């Protein structure tokens, strides 16, 4: 109980933010998994980090430009202070999603192959960007690039809350289109629904979600929570709605519990959250096999 109080006192936004990050990833994960696009999740986490690394080159000083335009002190305003990292993280992810969404037009390389190339190139350019960054401490940049649950502050928390609401709104309002184009895009097109547009729209939404959660809680947590809770949902559920509900519950519950375990046993919170999710997955998988 004492540990819980300490965590609540010291990291209130981390605790709440971990729940939001878990919900965002697990909810989007159902879409990613149902589209057999798991590797897209992996690639986007790395592309997102490459975008943040690019921002450290300070080739375009967006923060100063926006600060002077809106007459805001960049140093004082913590949101604007980190705007460039988030902006380039999102920009890089959007470009990757656009490239991926157009890959069906060609037959020279498979989508998996393309994602594999995006994945390794993102890692390679990240290293190159960091090497050319004017900031001397590479290890410090690496730590900032990869995010950490415990570093979630008020800005990150409210940004994720807004993103979560937007994602729920989009997937709720356009659930008809979502169901049809993800189930059978060919027939949806034949029946007059613009499958290409809708798939691109949903993938861009996924890209925004993945990009921001990677920025705030790290690539390992994001990728793990895209895949593991939705996989558990698919194993357990008998209806589509149940898949989403189970995935979201797991995505919401395990991260704060993992922060508690990480504190108790002196582990890093991100990897602990991944391992705990994996343990739950194994238990569910074994029980399902035995039944």
């Amino acid at each position, binding site marked *: 109980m004492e540990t819980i109080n300490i965590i609540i006192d010291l990291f209130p936004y981390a605790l709440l933010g971990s729940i939001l990050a878990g919900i965002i990833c697990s909810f989007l994960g159902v879409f990613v998994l149902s589209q057999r696009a798991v590797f897209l999740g992996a690639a986007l986490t790395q592309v997102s980090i490459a975008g943040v690394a690019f921002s450290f080159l300070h080739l375009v000083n967006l923060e100063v430009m926006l600060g002077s335009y809106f007459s805001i002190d960049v140093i004082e305003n913590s949101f604007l202070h980190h705007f460039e990292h988030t902006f380039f993280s999102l920009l890089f992810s959007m470009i990757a999603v656009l490239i991926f969404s157009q890959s069906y037009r060609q037959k020279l390389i498979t989508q998996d192959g393309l994602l594999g190339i995006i994945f390794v190139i993102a890692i390679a350019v990240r290293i190159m960007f960091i090497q050319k960054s004017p900031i001397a401490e590479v290890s410090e940049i690496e730590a900032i690039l990869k995010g950490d649950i415990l570093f979630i502050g008020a800005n990150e928390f409210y940004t994720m809350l807004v993103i979560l609401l937007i994602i729920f709104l989009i997937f709720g309002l356009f659930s008809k289109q979502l169901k049809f184009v993800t189930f059978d895009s060919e027939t949806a097109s034949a*029946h007059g629904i613009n499958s290409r547009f809708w798939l691109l729209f949903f993938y861009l939404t996924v890209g925004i979600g993945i990009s921001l959660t990677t920025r705030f809680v790290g690539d390992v947590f994001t990728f793990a929570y895209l895949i593991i809770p939705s996989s558990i949902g698919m194993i357990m559920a*008998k209806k589509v709605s149940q898949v989403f509900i189970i995935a979201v519950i797991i995505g919401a519950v395990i991260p704060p519990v993992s922060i508690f375990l990480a504190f108790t046993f002196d582990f890093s919170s991100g990897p602990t959250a991944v391992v705990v999710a994996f343990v739950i997955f194994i238990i569910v998988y074994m029980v399902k096999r035995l039944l």
Partner: protein
Amino acid sequence: MKDNYLISLSGLSIGYKNKIIHSNINLKITDNDFIGLVGPNGSGKTTFLRTLLGTLKPLAGNIDKDGVRFGYVPQRDTVQPLLPYSVFDVVMMGRYSLKGLFEKIEKEDIAIAGESLEKVGISSLKNMNYNSLSGGQRQRTLIARALAVNPNVLILDEPTNGMDTPSHYSLLSLIEDLHDQSKLTILLVSHLLSDVANLAKKIILFEKDNFQCGNIDDILSEENLSKTYSTGIKISKIGSEFFITSKHTHANGNN
């Protein structure tokens, strides 16, 4: 209906980008037609269907299909969902294309989906998981989804592929009923020439650089089919039923 036709294709060229697959297609599809589309792989059947459905732009010419609503049944193997959709969920998708962006599903939509399930004889399966169905049941589900659109024209792409014999004939019987009783115009793509010959009223035969359309008796000659498929084709008729088979050449050269 315009001058006795539902769809009119005039001077139509189909293909991709700069590659024309067929050109100068002139065809009128009338109400309650039953047209079989046959031809070897790569002869342009799918390109023709996509152009007709509007998912592929014609390279030239015109398609007059105002007021026509298509119900499309894709090849079963192309639909392999990971999510546990129920049969009813799948059939309801047929109603989605008729709804506006923010329009909700109404009681009428649910009733139409239920009727569609009834028409194809799988009302009892409505709560079953689509993934747990047999091939024949899945195909009926996809047909029910196409019927939920309330179509004028039902397009079926290889509906009996990979089915066992009872399911195969049961499905053909359903398609025949939909044509006869529901008065639907049907376009059936199939590799099984006998099925098309026995069900359809007209036939479109796609060759590599040619396109023939006409009545069954005009198009289905051994000479015509042998030329199209580049192999010997034998046509037998027992009663009113066609049996179209390939003439296999044995190693000793005898047929």
